[in-house]
Every structure is written in C-alpha cells, then in structure tokens.
C-alpha cells in the first residue's frame, strides 16, 4: 500500500499548527515526501492554484475566513482540482448528514478526529482503489460526455457485483436527472428503495418528481425525509422549493427558518429564506437572513450583488438611509470589475436615493446596462430590473422585462413561477399565470415550427425563423441552440460560407454564455469544429 501512497503529492490544511505537524508526521511515516501545508483557506487556495495535488487533507474548521467546505466549493467550482484529486475532509464529529445531498460539492470522504495513522493509511488505500475504479466515469462526466459515462457505468454494472454498485446507480440516476430523463431516474431510485430505505434515493426521487412538476408527491417525499431525520438539510431546501411552486409561501418560509436554525451556515438557504420572507412581507426575517448571507459569503462562491441590493432596499424602507447607502457602496467594493455589480449599484440607487433626480439618473444607467447584458441576462437580474422599473412608475417597461425573461426561460418551471409571482406582486397583470403559460406555449410552438422546417429540408427558412426568434430571446438556451443547429445543418448541406459561419459561432457563443455545460451545445460544438476544419 505505502508504495503507492508515498509517491503522492499532499496538501495539509489546518489552522492548528500541532495538528498540521501530527498529520505531516503520519504522512512522513508512510514515506511521503511531497507535503505542502496551509494554515487557512486562502493559503490553501493559493497553493492549489499553483500546483496539482493528489490528496488534500483539509480540516473543516479553519478559524477565521473560509471553512473547509467553502474551500472545497471554491476549488471545485473554479475547476482548480480535477477528478483525480482526493479531497478528505477532517471533522471534529460526524457532520456528514448536514451536507448530504449537496452532491456537487461533497468531499470524497470524511475523517473524524482523532484517527491514527493506520486508519488514515487504510482510508487512503480504499479511496485510491475506488478512484481507480471510477476515474474514467468521473472524467467523462467532467467532460460532459454523458453518453460515454452512461456506457461505462452500464459496463461496470453488468459485471459481477461491484463494490461500487450503489455508487454507480446513484451516478446513473444523477446523470438521468441532469439530462431530464426523469422517468429513468425515477425507476433507478425506486429500484433502490424497494430493497431498503436509503436517504439519497428518496431525495433523488423527490427531485425527479419536482422536475416532472408533480409537486404534491415531491412534497410528501421531502417531508418524510425530514420526519425521519431532522438533520437532513437538503430535504428542507427542496421541501421549501416545492411548497413555493404550490403557492404555500408562509409554510415554505417556516420550513427554511427551521432549517436555518439547525444549520445557519449555508448561504443559498439564507438567500432563499430572505427571498421568501420578502414575498411574505416579513422584512425583518429577510434582513436578518441577508445580513447572515453577506457575512458568511465574504469568501464564498455564492456571494451575489443582489444580496447587498436587497439589504439596502430594506434599510431605506425602514428609514436607515445612511446604512442603505453604505450597503450600495459595498457592492462595488465587494465585486470588482463585475458588470452585474455595476447594474445592481444603479438599480439599488434608483430605488433608495431620496434625491429624485439622482434616482432617475441611476434608473437610466441601470436601463442601459441591463440592455447591454443580452444573452447574459439571468432571470434573477430581470426580476430585479422589473422591480426597479415598477418602483420608478414605468409599469410598461417592468412588464416587458418580465415577459422577455419568461420567453428566455420557457423550459424552466421554477423561473417561470418566480416571474409570474413577481408580475402578481407588482400588480402588473390580472392573471399572471395565464400570461406566462401563453408565453411558454408561444415559444414552444415557434421552436416546433422551426424544427419542422428543418426536418422538411427547408433549412434556409428554418435559419431565418430561428434568427428572428433568437433576436427576441437572446438568453433562451433552446432557441439559440436551435439557431446554431440549423445554421450548421444548412452549411453541411450547401457548403461553408464566411457569413453563415459567423452566425453559427454567434449562437454557439450565446449558448455557451447561458449554459456552458449544456450537452447539446457540446455536441454541436464538436460537429461545428469538424465541419469548419474539413473546409479549411
């Protein structure tokens, strides 16, 4: 065992010097020579930026600044570590359940203190064996090549009972969820649950039901999970999400409040709670949650200018003008060279400044910055922009922005619900749900028409249709992908021209901007590279 371990490159992250030296001595006793050490999250990230480690041994508790989970989130989010790196979280006690379900950023394993060097060696050997078994699959997933990943998983599942059998099933179900094959995901989860109660399978089943817009069943599943284990934090988050879709805003808020008491450190939870509280007119809870999110978020990938903006608005509403203005100034301080931050500064100023002329000026700046975003317009920004327009009394503009956001996101039920709720809240529509569902239908119809044209070989007409559609919906992933696809097909048939390939690249770039990891995008990109190469 040691001869594999001794060749690996290790990073030890612990704020406690004694613990660092204990860990270092354990590794030295295995013959490891390549050991770096960091005493806080910032140094750890700096070290990881500089070089690749095989194993990162990181304590959860790192004193001031980032904690171990935030280090993990940042390095995974920024893709600073690849699938080959093992991340071992060292905890004072079993904290696993608290983060369970946040699969995207789970460490490879947890080690509970204290442990002996023999145990560490044993665990490392086990993880290395497991990594070796799964690395091809993890690599395929990291490359977004889900077809290959699924094929590799199936091959392994067919062989004799693998030790990683359940892990493979779990991965397969997660891929199905991501690729919107909900029925496949459901059948995997149900198969697992038939034999016994497993929390991740029930959570996954609930998610699949949620995405299928079967909210009643989803709600029941998430509620069951909480009643079985009240520390299962992601069940709270999903239950509240589901309740929002069912218009049960008060109930959703109380679920998240309970969740936030049990585990106050999750920024997305605090943010979701604040959003709900704002909807429910409970400014006090919203403010508290937002302040918590901002203070936790200092070193987090989850920090967003809208948090500061919302606090400023609440403060201004309560007559704390100076405080409000301070939070707006904090936006630019906390987010340097960020176009969204500039926009949020203007939006906030337009809503909080007492000087009407200054507020109006900011509204104009915001409007200009917003229009410049194009395909980078997220639904959240659109909703906040609409609120600013509505605050300035420009209801038409507010409505227009929200309608546009709905057509940009016509496949996302959660976003559409949020937009519809905002339309209602700002009293912009009598029947927001009807308007939204009409917009949704219109976009679907348009896409179908274009697809039919393409199928029928009328590719020129199809490109025109999608070009027009994409002008109106610059941030709609489906429309932009369809536009790219038809231009590609058109060129595959009639030959490559400069004009057409410029357009193809424009839509690919937009899609890249909206959803960089989209699978269709990746396959279109491959196809397009092939076409353009064969032509040059």
């Amino acid at each position, binding site marked *: 065992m040691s001869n594999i371990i001794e060749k690996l490159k290790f990073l030890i992250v612990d704020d406690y010097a004694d613990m660092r030296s204990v860990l270092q001595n*354990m590794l030295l006793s295995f013959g490891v020579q390549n050991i770096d050490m960091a005493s806080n999250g910032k140094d750890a990230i700096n070290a990881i930026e500089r070089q690749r480690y095989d194993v990162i041994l990181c304590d959860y508790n790192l004193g001031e600044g980032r904690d171990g989970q935030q280090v993990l989130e940042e390095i995974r989010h920024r893709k600073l570590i690849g699938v080959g790196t093992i991340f071992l979280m060292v905890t004072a006690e079993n904290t696993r359940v608290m983060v369970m379900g946040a699969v995207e950023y789970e460490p490879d394993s947890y080690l509970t203190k204290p442990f002996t060097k023999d145990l560490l060696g044993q665990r490392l050997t086990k993880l290395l064996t497991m990594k070796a078994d799964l690395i091809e699959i993890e690599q395929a997933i990291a490359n977004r090549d889900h077809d290959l990943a699924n094929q590799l998983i199936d091959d392994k599942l067919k062989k004799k009972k693998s030790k990683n059998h359940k892990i493979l099933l779990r991965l397969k179900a997660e891929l199905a969820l991501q690729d919107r094959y909900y029925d496949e995901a459901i059948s995997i989860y149900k198969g697992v649950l038939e034999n016994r109660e497993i929390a991740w399978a029930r959570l996954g089943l609930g998610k699949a039901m949620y995405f299928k817009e079967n909210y009643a069943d989803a709600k029941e599943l998430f509620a069951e999970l909480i009643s079985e284990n009240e*520390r299962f934090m992601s069940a709270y988050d999903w239950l509240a999400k589901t309740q929002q879709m069912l218009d049960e805003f008060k109930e959703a808020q109380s679920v998240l409040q309970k969740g936030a008491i049990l585990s106050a450190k999750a920024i997305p939870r605090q943010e979701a709670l604040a959003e709900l509280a704002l909807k429910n007119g409970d400014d006090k809870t919203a403010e508290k949650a937002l302040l918590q999110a901002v203070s936790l978020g200092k070193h987090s990938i989850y920090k967003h200018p809208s948090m500061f903006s919302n606090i400023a608005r609440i403060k201004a509403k309560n007559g704390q003008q100076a405080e409000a203005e301070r939070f707006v100034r904090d936006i630019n301080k906390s987010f340097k060279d960020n176009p969204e931050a500039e926009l949020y500064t203007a939006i906030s100023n337009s809503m909080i400044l007492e000087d009407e002329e200054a507020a109006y000026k900011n509204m104009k700046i915001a409007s200009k910055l917003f229009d410049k975003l194009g395909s980078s317009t997220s639904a959240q920004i659109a909703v906040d922009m609409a609120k600013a327009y509505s605050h300035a009394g420009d209801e038409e503009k507010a409505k227009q922005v929200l309608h546009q956001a709905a057509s940009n996101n016509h496949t996302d039920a959660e976003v559409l619900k949020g937009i519809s709720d905002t339309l209602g809240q700002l009293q912009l529509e009598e029947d927001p749900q009807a308007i939204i569902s009409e917009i949704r239908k219109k976009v679907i119809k348009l896409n179908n028409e274009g697809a039919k044209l393409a199928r029928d070989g009328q590719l020129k007409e199809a490109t025109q249709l999608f070009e027009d559609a994409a002008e109106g919906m610059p941030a709609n992933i489906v429309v932009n992908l369809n536009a790219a696809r038809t231009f590609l097909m058109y060129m595959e048939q009639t030959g490559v021209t400069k004009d057409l390939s410029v357009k193809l690249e424009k839509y690919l770039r937009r899609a890249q901007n909206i959803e960089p990891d989209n699978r269709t995008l990746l396959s279109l990109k491959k196809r397009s590279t092939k076409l353009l190469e064969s032509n040059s």
Partner: protein
Amino acid sequence: MLFYDVLASIIHDMKNSLGMVINRLDEVVAEMPSDANDSAKITSIQQEAKRLNNNLIELLTLYRMENERIAPVIDEVDVMSFLQESMAENQSAANATGIDIGCNCSDDLIGYFDEGLVHGIINNLIGNALRYTQSKIELSASEQDGYLVISVEDDGSGFPEQMLKAQEAEINSNGIADGRTLLGIHFANLVTKMHKNKDKTGYIQLSNNGKLKGGCFSIYLP
C-alpha cells in the same frame, strides 16, 4: 447556555486534547527502537487515552441522541474495509501487547448502516477486548436471516454474569460491573435499535464460550 450544552462543549474540547495525546504518543513509539522497554508502557498509556476518548465519544453521542434527536444515516457500507479500518485503528496497541487481531469476513459483503455510529461501537468493543483478552481478538461479519451480524470475540475469561443480564434490561443506576461500565452496552443497544429496516429492528447479543472460548459481543443490524 444550559449546563448540558456546556458539558457537551467541554467534552468536545477534552476529546481534541486526547486526540493530540494519542497522536503524539504514536509518534513517540515510532521513534523508539523496537526493543525499547518503555514502548509497552507508552502503548498502554495510549490505550487508556483511547478508552477515555471512546467513552467521551459515547457520551457526546448519547447527549446528541437525547437533545438533538440525531437519526442514523443509513448507507451502503463495504463491510470488509469497514472492519479493516477498525482493526487499523487498534493495530499498534495490539502489536505492543502481543495480541493478535484477526478478521473473518467475506470480501464482497455489503452492509447498510450508519458508519460513524457503528464505528463508535466496534471501536469501543475492540478497546474492551484488548483489555480482557488473553492473546487473540477476532472480528467477524456475516449475513444471517436478513441481519448483518458483526461480532467481536476474544479468548479472555468472558463477560461477567451482570453484563450478560444487562443486555436484556435497560441500564440501571447501580449497574457498574467490575470495571466494565455498562455505558458501552447501553450505547451499543441504543445505536443498534435505531437501525430499522421494514419490520426488523437491530439488537445486541452478548455470550460466553464462543469459538475463542472468551466473550463474544455481537450486533445485529437489519
């Protein structure tokens, strides 16, 4: 802060200190020549520290069960590597006292239980066995009638009558038996009972005169 919360956080702190003691002693042993006389002494100090640590973990977990209503997180566990980790944790102590720890488990056995909680039980059982055995400890695991059975057996003189009785009854206030506290039984009992599947519930079983002629402590997980 409530008294019990203070207690919990103090236990936590004590646990950290003990952790450091255990780890540092490991280093001291590693640096000593292998025939050094004192190494046995140090290992026995370390063994006592581990025992203390196990007890603290049990206390803390019991506290959590009552105050935070923690529930087990059931997941698939590779039993062989689970047992190997438990052995590894106690290997140096066993070596120092010349006790042989063995493991009898099929390589592809899969279990469903809360790894952290059950690890607490097994570690404690091995710790006790190290104290009372003659020369051997055997860990074993197998499937029996829908239960995963994990046993820790030794070739010592077996469990006293009082302990055998205690497995049936709830722990009572005067139940301290010959240095073996009943806390361990109570803890194992609670944790195994928290494991449920369909209509089956986990349980513990203590017996004497098993394969190794000493005590045998088994936990049954559905």
